[in-house]
């Protein structure tokens, strides 16, 4: 086929055709690159750390990520018991971690290890990711505080901070050894600051660093937890983090898909098979009219109505709007059902099948392609819904993805890389799925256009 076409081109009008082909390839690829740019930009921004994101001019690719190990030595120091030693190590740990993160924010230190040693044995180890430390500073234990030694160690804050970060301690030694063979780029820079401003009890033996770019990927884990820090008043958000919003979206969209698939098919079945043509047309127009009513113009009375019913700030308010059949889907279904040979139904009806049997045993098993099409259409059409969910939800645990992203992005303290991270997390599954099911997706979209 292709060769044939080429030969044809070679014979006549080759020039114009070839010019068009070249233009088509270049422009299409250009568009493709332009379209991919925001996506690539989002992914790369999400992987930048808290200082890289504010670099001007912005770079396309994230810079390298550093992992820094501090070794503190407690040999020769007197402690009454193990508790006191642990307490001292926790204090030092907090000082080193938060001090370094605060003072050297622009050095892309993504990970900090702190080892406490005594007489050649490692007794203490703690490891924190930059995002974790930053979140504690922005929303957590050290919210709205200056990062100074007295404040870091005030009350039991340092204990809570260490518990949140996680650590290992055993007075008889743990089986972790400070990594060997690290570079010492930061030694001269950081050591004086730690010794002067965040003086630790243990002696600072070494500060080693190495490049570990995978750490940028680990940031995503902390982005997902971020909502728990921003909205500590909501129990469910604290427990599940960003997944709460994912779950809400899944519930809403899933419900919409199921409701539309069932409701529309029932209506279309009745219209297509049981009503006269005129009555069917009237009912179809009735449903189509309902769908065409613009949301903006019924938003206000709808809100008043739902509020009166008590469907406000709960799942009922989010799910109820999907409980009527969308006219267009009924129309698509009807077009499909009309093509099922009538003899199937007649034969079954002669054998005494009722409407329900005809619908569930004969009509539906034949309509698998249209069911997947309607489900996809519902997903594409409602996955972007924002305003209604935004109007009727106040509690964070009811937010859908769109509402949550909007609210988090309006939260002044949120860093852009975290936002981008959440955005990427939101769209990645959809993009993967749409690549996987691209054939069905294309068919479904093309079918939705053939409505004249």
């Amino acid at each position: 086929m292709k060769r044939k076409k080429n030969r044809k081109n070679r014979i006549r009008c080759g020039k114009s055709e070839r010019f068009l082909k070249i233009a088509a390839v270049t422009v299409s690829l250009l568009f493709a690159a332009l379209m991919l740019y925001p996506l690539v930009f989002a992914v790369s921004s999400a992987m930048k750390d808290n200082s890289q994101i504010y670099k001007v001019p912005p770079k396309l690719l994230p810079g390298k990520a550093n992992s820094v190990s501090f070794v503190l030595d407690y040999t020769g120091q007197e402690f009454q018991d193990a508790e006191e030693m642990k307490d001292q190590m926790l204090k030092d740990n907090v000082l080193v971690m938060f001090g370094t993160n605060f003072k050297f924010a622009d050095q892309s230190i993504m990970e900090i290890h702190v080892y406490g040693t005594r007489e050649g044995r490692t007794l203490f180890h703690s490891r924190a990711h930059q995002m974790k430390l930053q979140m504690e500073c922005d929303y957590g234990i050290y919210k709205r505080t200056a990062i100074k030694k007295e404040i870091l160690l005030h009350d039991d804050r340092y204990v809570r901070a260490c518990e949140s970060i996680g650590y290992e301690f055993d007075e008889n030694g743990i089986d972790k050894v400070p990594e060997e063979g690290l570079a010492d780029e930061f030694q001269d820079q950081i050591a004086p600051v730690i010794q002067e401003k965040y003086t630790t009890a243990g002696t600072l033996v070494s500060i080693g660093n190495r490049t570990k770019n995978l750490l940028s990927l680990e940031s995503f884990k902390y982005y997902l937890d971020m909502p728990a820090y921003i909205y500590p008043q909501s129990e469910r958000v604290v427990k599940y983090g960003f997944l709460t919003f994912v779950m809400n979206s899944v519930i809403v969209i899933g419900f919409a898909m199921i409701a539309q698939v069932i409701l529309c098919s029932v209506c279309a079945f009745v219209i297509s098979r049981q009503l006269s043509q005129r009555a069917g047309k009237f009912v179809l127009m009735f449903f189509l009219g309902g769908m065409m009513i613009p949301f903006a113009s019924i938003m206000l009375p709808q809100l008043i109505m739902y509020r009166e019913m008590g469907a406000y700030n709960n799942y009922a308010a989010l799910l109820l709007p999907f409980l009527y059949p969308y006219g267009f889907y009924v129309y698509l279904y009807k077009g499909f059902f009309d093509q099922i040979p009538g003899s199937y139904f007649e034969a079954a009806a002669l054998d005494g099948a009722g409407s329900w049997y005809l619908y569930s045993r004969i009509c539906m098993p034949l309509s698998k392609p249209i069911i997947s099409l309607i489900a996809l259409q519902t997903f594409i059409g409602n996955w972007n819904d924002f305003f209604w969910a935004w109007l009727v939800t106040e509690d964070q645990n009811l937010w859908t993805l769109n509402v949550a992203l909007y609210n988090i992005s309006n939260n002044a303290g949120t860093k852009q890389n975290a936002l981008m991270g959440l955005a990427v997390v939101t769209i990645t599954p959809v993009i993967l799925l749409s690549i996987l099911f691209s054939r069905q997706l294309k068919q479904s979209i093309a079918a939705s256009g053939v409505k004249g």
Partner: protein
Amino acid sequence: MSAKMSTKKKKSFTAKPGSYTFRKKVTPWCILFLPMAFTVWLKYYPIFSAFYISLFKYDPINPPGRFVGLKNYLEMFQMQFYWESWKNTFIFLLLQLCMCFFIPLIQALLLNELIRLQKCLTTLYILPALIPTSVNVIIWRWIWHPDYGVANQIVKFFGGEPQVWLSDPDLVKFCIIFPGVLGGGLTVLLYLSAIQGVSTDIMESAALDGCTGFKKIRHIILPNISFMIFIQLIMCVITTMQLLDAPYMYASGGPSGASTTQGIFIYNAFNDDLNYGRGSAASVVLLIVIAVLTMLQMHFEKSEKN
């Protein structure tokens, strides 16, 4: 045929309750009753409710409050802000038509010329269309950021003055519409399937007559899909008239009301001013405008069918 139908109908009316014909006639309506009732309840009733509320100085605590007739409408029509929001809506529409409407068409026409790349490029084109507005807002607000954004870097690269983009009343509409340039993937597919639906006979005979390349696009393809283009045009107008999410999420209708569309005007009327009557009045006017446009669309679709 019609005579047959009418006799059938007469029979159904005379059928006794409980008889087979009666059951056959009534069952479908029984099944349809619930979905239709829900549609009336969730969709049609709010329209009348909007009209009803718009006649009152609505009091949310003791509804419906004082009856004022058409005063809400008259007051609203005297508001400068109301007409500005219409003006904004139309500027949005104009921008949408200039920037976003033709691009999917061009993309589809060019994609049609490709053979090997077509499949993977169409997939690629759908992706931005599936990105929800909230995510787009996050990405593009950062691109438009006056200090750290890419947009200003590009402007600076070409020697221009850095702009404040979303905070500039003159530029904000452009900034909100521009991301849509890349997000027209679904329309591309519609056009593409329309182009591929043009009968091969026409294409082949055109090729035999020496009509290839750009000539083919101009004289063969475009006239054949003109109906599709027209429908898309009306769809574009209808959706832009209802524009609500994007301006709200990008700039909350600001700065100084420069991105306040009709939808945001309605929202502000009841959210900020607590004036339910005015909000409903604006709703009704918007509904009428969109209804006229929709009827226009249906009229043309019908005439095309015939």
